[in-house]
């Protein structure tokens, strides 16, 4: 694995559903060892882009190169994906779920998952159906971060969580992402997360508006990423119902 090569490249990527263009000419490179914020309003195209990278959708045109190769078996092996909605089988216990992940993913670290569950005071024999929604979300994050992946993609990990859970999630990301691995976090809740970002990507109406180093942007605009984001999209407000 060469380290100079970007982990993820999107080239002239387009996605349409019927006549509706969801993503327009996306060009993008994600280096190794970075936490990247994929920032955009609801409906901007964040989840569609993430689904393309995870091979859950097929591009209309353009290409995605991950770790030097196309989307497929290898890319799925090295990407750990936290979808927006929970997908856990509620009939299983936590221990059974951990075993399931260990069987499914060769790079899954069961010991780490158990350790993280333990730190959350979760009883491994508890059924997922009996857990609160917040706990289920935490468990799902634990499972994703327990994979020794090269790229972690977290789709709206902070949607609807309370401040304490948000802190837990950010801490868990910071303390568990592996050296040399990258994390893509999609969100519209920027102020909550901007501190941990190396780089930001602004996406709107299916197009990349801006990509830059977070601290460089702050320096340039004398403003937080959150403020820059709001200012950038203010101009577009009249054209839609934000």
């Amino acid at each position, binding site marked *: 694995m060469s380290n100079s090569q970007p982990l993820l490249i999107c080239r002239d990527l387009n996605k349409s559903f019927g006549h509706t263009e969801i993503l327009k000419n996306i060009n993008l490179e994600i280096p190794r*060892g*970075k*936490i990247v914020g994929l920032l955009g309003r609801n409906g901007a195209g964040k989840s569609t882009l993430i689904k393309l990278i995870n091979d859950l959708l097929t591009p209309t045109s353009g290409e995605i190169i991950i770790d030097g190769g196309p989307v497929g078996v290898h890319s799925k092996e090295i990407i750990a994906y936290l979808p927006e909605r929970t997908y856990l089988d509620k009939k299983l216990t936590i221990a059974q779920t951990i075993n399931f992940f260990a069987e499914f993913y060769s790079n899954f670290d069961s010991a780490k998952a158990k350790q993280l569950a333990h730190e959350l005071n979760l009883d491994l024999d508890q059924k997922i159906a009996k857990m609160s929604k917040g706990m289920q979300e935490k468990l799902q994050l634990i499972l994703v971060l327990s994979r020794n992946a090269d790229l972690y993609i977290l789709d709206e990990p902070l949607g609807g969580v309370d401040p304490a859970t948000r*802190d837990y999630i*950010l*801490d868990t990301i*910071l*303390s568990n992402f592996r050296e040399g691995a990258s994390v893509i976090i999609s969100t519209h809740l920027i*102020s909550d997360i*901007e*501190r*941990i*970002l*190396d780089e930001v990507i602004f996406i709107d109406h299916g197009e990349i508006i801006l990509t830059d180093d*977070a*601290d*460089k942007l*702050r*320096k340039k605009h*004398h*403003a*937080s*990423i*959150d*403020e820059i984001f709001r200012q950038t999209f203010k101009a577009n407000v009249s054209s839609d119902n934000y």
Partner: protein
Amino acid sequence: MPKLNFNFTSDRPIYLQLVEQLTLYIVSGKLPPGDKLPPIRELALRAKVNPNTIQRALTELEDQRLIYTERTNGKFVTQNIKLITKYREQSAYTITQQYFQTMANLGFDRKTTINYLKKEKNHE
């Protein structure tokens, strides 16, 4: 290891704020000369920022010679007291300047500003 706390505002580069706050810990002696710094990951968790941001701040501090790297052993606060004193004086100068600037923004002339300092001194 003393308890290091960090506070950031989001409207300025975080690595610069880290440099400032770590410099303050060093010049105030809370991070004493020759002391070992916590590992980058630990600092990242404590400051709740990205390890790369910590790395960037430490590189800056290293450029300023306020810390140094011992290969394989970690990063340490400089033992050069002269240098620490220099940065300490620099901090004092900056704070004083900021005070005069803020007072000037409030419309006070230099003489009145100094009188405020004297008054404050008498309160002690």
